[in-house]
């Protein structure tokens, strides 16, 4: 008698379990990991300085990195080879659409480091060392007249750089739907 009841009930429970979110028996299959496990995987470098690696570099060091890895698309002096590759110059007051270069548009220096480390060079992303990313970030900021040629760029100095267009943005992130 006991078995006769339990087995059908068990079968029903198993069937329901795949269909219904059961708060009593939540699926919890994530494998616990530590932040240390994610060194080299977590590439997020934030404006507050979190996520930046140790080390640093200067524009003077970065010129060679740039000439070898970046100039083919971005031009010898950041003038670009097509619209999206122009990274130096630009003027927010220009008559037409602004060029959105690092110097004239980008609000945070951290984004330059973050983007180069994760996505550049376009043909071989993530092929630069952290030191090279610091160096070439410094070189791009130098070409835009934002830092000096020998300014040491590292986790501490990078977050204190005030970008020219930092105040040029209107944050609309509070608008989640339009009423």
């Amino acid at each position, binding site marked *: 008698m006991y078995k006769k009841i339990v087995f059908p009930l068990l079968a029903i429970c198993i069937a329901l379990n795949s269909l219904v979110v059961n708060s009593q028996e939540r699926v919890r299959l994530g494998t616990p*990991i530590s932040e240390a496990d994610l060194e080299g995987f977590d590439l997020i470098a934030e404006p507050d300085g979190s996520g930046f690696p140790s080390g640093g570099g200067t524009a003077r060091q970065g010129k060679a990195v740039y000439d070898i890895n970046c100039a083919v698309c971005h031009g010898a002096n950041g003038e670009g080879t097509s619209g999206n590759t122009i990274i130096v110059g630009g003027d927010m007051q220009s008559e037409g659409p602004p060029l959105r270069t690092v110097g004239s548009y980008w609000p945070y220096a951290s984004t330059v480091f973050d983007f180069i480390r994760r996505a550049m060079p376009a043909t071989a992303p993530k092929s630069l060392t952290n030191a090279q990313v610091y160096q070439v970030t410094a070189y791009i900021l130098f070409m835009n007249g934002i830092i000096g040629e020998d300014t040491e760029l590292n986790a501490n100095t990078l977050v204190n750089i005030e970008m020219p267009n930092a105040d040029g943005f209107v944050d609309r992130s509070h608008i989640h739907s339009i009423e």
Partner: protein
Amino acid sequence: MTEKKLEKVAGNGLISRRHLLGMGATGVGLAASNSVLGQNSGINFEIPGWSRTPGPGPSNYGSRSRYTAAVQRSTAFQNPTYPGGGASRSPLQHLQGTITPNALHFERHHAGIPDIDPAGHKLVINGLVRQALAFSYEDLLKYPMVSSVYFLECAGNSGALLRGGNEDGTAQSIHGLVSCAEWTGIPLSTLLDEAGVLPEARWVAAVGADAASMGRSIPIEKALDDVMVALFQNGEPVMPGQGYPMRLFVPGWEGNISVKWLTQIKLTRAAAQFRDETSKYSDTLPDRSSYQFTFPMGTKSLITSPSGQMSLRNAGIYQITGIAWSGSGSISRVEVSADGGQTWADASIQGLQLDKALTRFTIPWEWNGGPAVLQSRATDSRGNVQPTRDVILAERGNISFYHNHCIQSWAVSNSGEVTNVYV
């Protein structure tokens, strides 16, 4: 006789949508009749060859008729400085209903489509959580899932209209960066609960496993609301071009934020300020300030037939049809004009009116053979009404191009040619 029955509801030939209801059964005189009973119809009733020879048997994965092979996405020119980058656009003028077939769903990639072996893929949740976690694809398949039909629209869709030009534009070339599918996956809140979100976490940073490791930041309120980790698209595993083995899906918001090939969710205090939420997907205004984090896509519609580069052969009855959607709710009303917005008539909603999903509308129209300008105007469940292009330009100028949801105007010439115009 039929003329008397056709109730005109707005200028230049728009016919009451009530006539649609009876059309299928009786025609209500709407179907143009070319032949007279008793005359030779000209139709060949000989048994065709395909009715005389068995065809091929079942296959492991279906393919469409070779006679519909011309229905294709259009792919943009590949820029050598941007390997794998670019977009393909859905052929909206050739589709019906509201679900986009997976192989025709628009694409936008920033470093091409990665060839991901799910056995080597992981989803990491870290940052401001009680316990950082890693999930395998196999792990995630065991979770309870939810399904919803949602549109996805690139922030850059229809941007060309703000700059002008594109006289030869089509529904596909101007508006083809929108698609709609049933997405199935795990609510992100389920996985975030498992990791334990710390109170100081205000944003999540989502990162993909493509060569660009494309990243976007999402406010925690939205992440805990209706965002999902989508594993299935219209019932089958998400296609590689849509993020296989998994993508984030952020309903109603600009497409770029639904990060494909999702491999990391990091809880943070503030937005990470990725390249694609600062330099890209921001809109510069006439005063040279720039809107950042414009998330919900606007209330929008367009007529997909008749539309740009189509031609109407004869004066007579046509079914105007199109799609409408809103990032802030469902579509409650679509109006259509045949006289460039002077008079409007309510279109019928065909099928479902789902939240943040494409909605199909239709209305019959009698083209008198003269010039016409066809427009549609959507209203969503929150009362948002789709604006004209002039309103958008007055608000934002024309030096930005993302997030354009203005009314589309298609002109019909005396000879029946349909073109993109600005009125």
